[in-house]
Structures are given as C-alpha cells and as structure tokens.
C-alpha cells in the first residue's frame, strides 16, 4: 500500500481552480520533491494531504487514513502525518521542549518524564540538545526550523510533509536545515516536500514532480528529470533556477 495516494484531486478557491486533477503516489520510505513556480498549486496540494485545505473532488489517502473533513478523522490522521511550514510556527510562549512535548502530552497521554526523554531524543536528532529550555524567540531561523522538525518527529509520524521549509532562511541557515532533512531521508522517512532547492531535490529526492498551472506537468526520477526535461516549461524553470 502506498504511503500517500492522491487520485484525480480538484481544488478550487472560489472561482479559481488551483488543482486540476492531480494524481500521484508515494511509496513508504520514498522521498518525493514537488517543484514549480509560485501559484502552481504545489503548496496547496501538500496542505490538502493533511486536511488543512478541503478538496472539491478526488480522493486522498495517507498513512492508511482517508482524508475527509471530519475533525475526529483528521486528528487521527495528523498523529501519523507531520507537517513543517515555511514560517516555522513554533509556539512563542512555550520553551523548545514544551513545544515538542505539547502534543504527545495532550493527544497521546505520554507521561511527563517519558515526554522529556522523547524531547531530548528528537532534539538530539536535529542537533539542538542544548536548546531544551530556550524560547523560540532566542533561536535563529534555522534553529527554529530544526525545532519545528523535531516537534513533528516527536509524534512518530509515518509520513512527513515539508512546505518550503527553507524559503525564509538565508543560504547559511538553509544548509543546516537541509542537512537534517537529508539525514531523515537516509533514515527511511517517507517525505513529500515542496521546495525551491533544486540541488536538494536532485540529490536527495528519488522522484521529482514538476507542477504547472494546477497539474502535474512532468515527473520522474530526479536526476533524469533535471538533466533531461521533456517539456519547455520545465526546461525554462530549471534554467531560470540555475542562475
């Protein structure tokens, strides 16, 4: 069974159709990159997968859950599907460890001591053990994003979604976040990521999907896709990104 199955999904904002029949599958352990211009629908697609956006037609299954808009179903789904956002979205009034422990404590009833162990574990995974008691405001953007990844990992997700997680970071900080993601990918995490980091897509993602005007325009094994784009749109996009 695929980890993510998307079948003929249509999504409209008012009269604007942003997804015009998108279908794709992600196998367990696979890393898939979604690339494309702003407005091509890639972020919307990602947000549909964990139910942050409702779809008008089609079908999405992820980690064994069928995505609908029933709040109870969505909570169960989100225990298995992590998402990391461009703007980190850490909770400013909670320390790093409290950010991480919040959901395990209240949605999975993990006891405090065990939650602390879990927090130390995932913080070590992103290389930020020493920030256990810091507040988000005292961290750099790259550190905040790594904490956000750790916070997602603490849920023990089966699938991780990354929505342009390095777009708000300068190049130096981008590197440290991508390194963490690469480690995750090598560790066998199923990942679907929207990214503008073409090198990362080429080198880490096994499959890259190029979206254009709300459709999957072209997809394939990453290296082939980048070295030999079939459509003029992807060719333009890749050469524009290469500057």
């Amino acid at each position, binding site marked *: 069974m695929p980890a993510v199955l998307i079948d003929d999904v249509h999504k409209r904002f008012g009269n604007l159709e942003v997804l015009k029949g998108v279908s794709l599958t992600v196998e367990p352990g696979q890393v898939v990159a979604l690339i494309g211009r702003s407005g091509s629908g890639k972020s919307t697609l990602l947000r549909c997968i964990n139910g942050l956006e409702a779809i008008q037609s089609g079908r999405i299954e992820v980690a064994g859950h069928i995505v609908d808009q029933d709040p109870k179903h969505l909570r169960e789904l989100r225990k298995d599907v992590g998402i990391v956002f461009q703007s980190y979205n850490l909770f400013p009034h909670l320390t790093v460890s409290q950010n991480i422990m919040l959901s395990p404590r209240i949605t999975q009833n993990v006891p405090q001591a065990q939650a602390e162990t879990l927090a130390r574990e995932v913080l070590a995974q992103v290389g930020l053990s020493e920030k256990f008691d810091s*507040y988000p405001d005292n961290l750099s953007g790259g550190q905040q994003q790594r904490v956000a990844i750790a916070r997602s990992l603490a849920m023990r997700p089966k699938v991780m979604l990354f929505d342009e997680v390095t777009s708000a970071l300068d190049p130096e900080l981008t590197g440290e976040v991508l390194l963490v993601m690469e480690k995750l990918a090598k560790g066998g995490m199923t990942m679907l990521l929207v990214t503008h980091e073409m090198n990362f897509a080429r080198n880490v993602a096994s499959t890259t999907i190029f979206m254009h005007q709300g459709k999957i325009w072209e997809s394939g094994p990453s290296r082939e896709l980048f070295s030999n784009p079939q459509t003029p749109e992807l060719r333009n996009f890749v050469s524009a990104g290469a500057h």
Partner: protein
Amino acid sequence: MSLQFESVLAETDIILDGIMLTIGLSASAIVLGLIFAVLLVALRTLAGRWAGIAVDCYVELMRNTPFLVQLFMIFFGLPLVGIRMSGTQAALLAMTLNLAAYATEIIRAGVDSIHKSQLEAGLSLALSKRQVFQYVVLQPAFARVWPALSSQFVLMMLASSICSFISVQELSGAAAIIEQRTFRSFETYIIVTVIYLLLALSLKVFLLWLGQRLFAPVSGLARVDVKAEAA
C-alpha cells in the same frame, strides 16, 4: 476658606472599612469577571454560530447601558423574581457581569490577533480546536491585550464607587457617611480622591508587574533582556 481635616480623620475606621470593601469587591469582580470572560470568548470561538451571537448580544447589552442602571436592575429587579441578595452581593454581581463583557471584547481582540499559522500548527499536531484555543492561542492572546485589560480593571475599581448608590459602604459610601456626620464635604472628598488615586496607581503597578511575570517570554520585554545580556 479654611480646611479642617480633624473631624474627618476621626472617622478613620469607616474609611479603612471602605477601602477594604473597595479592594475586596474589585479584586473579586476582576477574578470572577475574567474567568467568565474567558468562558464567553471560548464559547464564541469554539461553539456554533448561535452561541457566538448570544455572547455578542450579552457584550453589547452590557457595554451600551450605564453601569448604574445595571446595578439597579440587579438590586431591585432580581428580588421580584425571588432572588434576594445583599447590597454587597448585588454590587459584586453587577461588577462581575459588567467587567466580563468588556473583558470579553478585549480578549476576543487578542484571540483574533493570533496568526492563522499558529492555529494551523496546532491543528497539524493533532490538537482539537478546543486544545488549540487552550494551549496555543489563549496565553499569547492574553499577553497582547494585558495592558488593555489592566486599564479596564482600574476603570472597574473606580466605577465600584457607583455601588454606594445602593448603600454599599465601599470607599465612596463611607465618604458619604462621614460627610453627613461632619459636614466637611470638601475635606472628605479630598481624602477620598487621594485614596482612590493611590489605589488606582497601586493596582496599575501590580498589574504591570503581574503581566511581566506571567507573559515575559511572549512580550517584547524578554527579547530586550536577551539582547542586553548578549551585549
């Protein structure tokens, strides 16, 4: 004109009792009103459309009628439907209900100011809407509107003087009694003015201190401290 404070100061006991009642009424109304307000905001945010409309109606009713009239409605109106209470109890109820309405409006503004991305982060971590409200939204919302809430609390403390209209012997009620006994109106109210001023300023300072203790990590102050440390 000559001011004579001796006869007024001879009534210190009444003044002290008045101060204690003003503080007691205000503190109780602030705590109870705040709890009620949080429940109303939760109802408005989480429950359905009709609950929201009901809360809005309540808030508008209390914010668009005079406190004195609300006090009279409770003190003279409730006995007609079989609910008897002392003047002090009626005062506390009126102050609580009035403060709750204003605080609801202020806290709601704070809740609305929390960025949608914070809610999405909470929901994405499998929290329910109630849990997002309770654990993600409420504290930062409070931190943002704490100054506005604080001035509302001070206004309520000052408005407690209106309760003297139903013979509650808080500070203003005490003043009225002393005035009748001594015929030293101006002296009495000079003293009462100074006391109210001191009470209001003390409350303001206390609330500022409390806000910094409770909300330091989310207010701008914490960040300034950190920068100062680094420098």
